């Protein structure tokens, strides 16, 4: 984890380029048919439960099995491999980039992710806090709860099979929660951002600074 942070450099970077660039890679081998063009505006999932899909980006066909791939974020198509239209493409090939305009909250979260210890989703599933941890959060508030390695912190729910998830990082408090109960989280996506007690003042400084300097 980073202990020193150059605020001016980071804020300067976001001022000059307040975007996230999200590469879209083919999910498996197959024939690609694009459904968007360069500079097209795209939408991410919407609805209270993210149940309304985003913009259809491309279709992938293999052995008569067609899959539709939708955008996971709003933004603009800033890069597209038009030359691959209708071609058979290998898995993991970068075929699109979505330029996503960052909100102030996202900028703060992006900076915090450089400082906080991430705790990532082990599988694509839905997550909720373990009963014991939820009770502590209800009583003391999210940032009033410390966790340490070995603590059962979450329950992963997949096909009505619940699996306890244990914490395996540095001891600290739960600073940021990136999941909502009832909304699926993809494998490897951050679920929590954990902060050691001594870093709390620095975290607060980051938030204050970004809020003050960002319209």
């Amino acid at each position, binding site marked *: 984890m980073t202990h020193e942070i150059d605020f001016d450099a980071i804020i300067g970077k976001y001022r000059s380029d307040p975007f996230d660039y999200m590469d879209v890679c083919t999910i498996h081998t197959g024939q690609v048919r694009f459904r968007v063009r360069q500079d097209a505006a795209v939408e991410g999932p919407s609805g209270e439960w993210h149940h309304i*899909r985003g913009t259809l980006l491309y279709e992938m066909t293999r052995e008569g*099995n067609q899959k539709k791939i939708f955008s996971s974020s709003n933004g603009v198509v800033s890069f597209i491999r038009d030359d691959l239209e209708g071609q058979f493409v290998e898995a993991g090939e970068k075929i699109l980039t979505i330029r996503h305009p960052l909100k102030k909250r996202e900028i703060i979260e992006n900076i915090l992710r450089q400082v906080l210890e991430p705790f990532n989703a082990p599988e*694509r599933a839905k997550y*909720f806090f373990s009963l014991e941890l939820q009770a502590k959060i209800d009583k003391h508030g999210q940032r009033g709860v410390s966790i340490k390695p070995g603590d059962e912190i979450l329950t992963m729910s997949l*096909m*009505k099979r*619940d699996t306890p998830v244990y914490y395996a990082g540095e001891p600290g408090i739960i600073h940021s929660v990136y999941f909502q*109960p*009832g909304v*699926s989280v993809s494998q490897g996506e951050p679920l929590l951002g954990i902060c050691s007690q001594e870093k709390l003042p620095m975290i607060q400084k980051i938030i204050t600074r970004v809020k003050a300097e960002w319209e």
Partner: protein
Amino acid sequence: MVAPLSFQTIRQLISDVEIPSRLGHYPAELVQAVYRYGAPVGSTILHLPQADRLMPLARQRINEDETRGHSCPSGMAFLADELTGSRGRFQRSWYAPPGGLWLTLVMANTLLPESMRLYPLAAGMACCEAIRSYGIDARVKWVNDVHVSGRKICGVLCESFTSSTFAEEYVLIGVGLNVNNLPFPAELGATAVSMKEILGCDTELTSFAARLLAKFSWSFGLLCHDEAQRLAADDGSGAQLPDSLLLAGWRELSDSVGRKVWFGFDVQRQPQYQAEVLGLAPDGGIVLRHLESGGEIVEHSGELLYID
């Protein structure tokens, strides 16, 4: 009361009743192979007159076995005549008095993740088949609630557990099945039903437990057989893989397709949206059409509440 039940009794039931009945639908070599895969079910059966809950006992037993340098036998079954502290998902209370069948089954996980995720469906299928074998028109509601005319007769709770010494992964399958327990508390009367209420007489619990474990032997065996078939057929060319027999069996027992439902992660406390059920995805997810937006969604975690 469940009288002592042995592994041999279950094997005998499979040999005398279950295999001949399956041979009417499947080739002999497939039936033999599936029951070989499912053979561990009921390998050890522990019977308790009363317990608070069975899941914690199962976890404790796994760890105790490992402390003594042994692995817990896969297929171990815990049966109790009565549970005093039972609960469903999300801490929902579950009424478990004498007369019902209260079971926790311990399966050592030897499956790949994409097969392991189907354990809950296989469990619902086994429970539904066991009830139907007594002439009751039971149906499965995704994932694995078993109901008769909209009233719940059986609930299944699955948990993963990693043992503390050998870090072996187990799947614990908890079953609460209303057999002879009647009447229900007032708050459950309209939503729950027991076999006794439908049949008008008691069912011999020990025979029913044996029948249920025999059905588990088939459905868990199918899960392993399906995986083996898919691995054998997958030559890396992307060719169509064989359909899952487990999912085909589950579809036959379910009445979810075509229904209008509320979907929710915890549907009782927080229904999320209304949808029509379009089908079961090859990975066990439920395919829904969101009624408001018309969008198609595949959900892998959550519950359905029928509204039609």
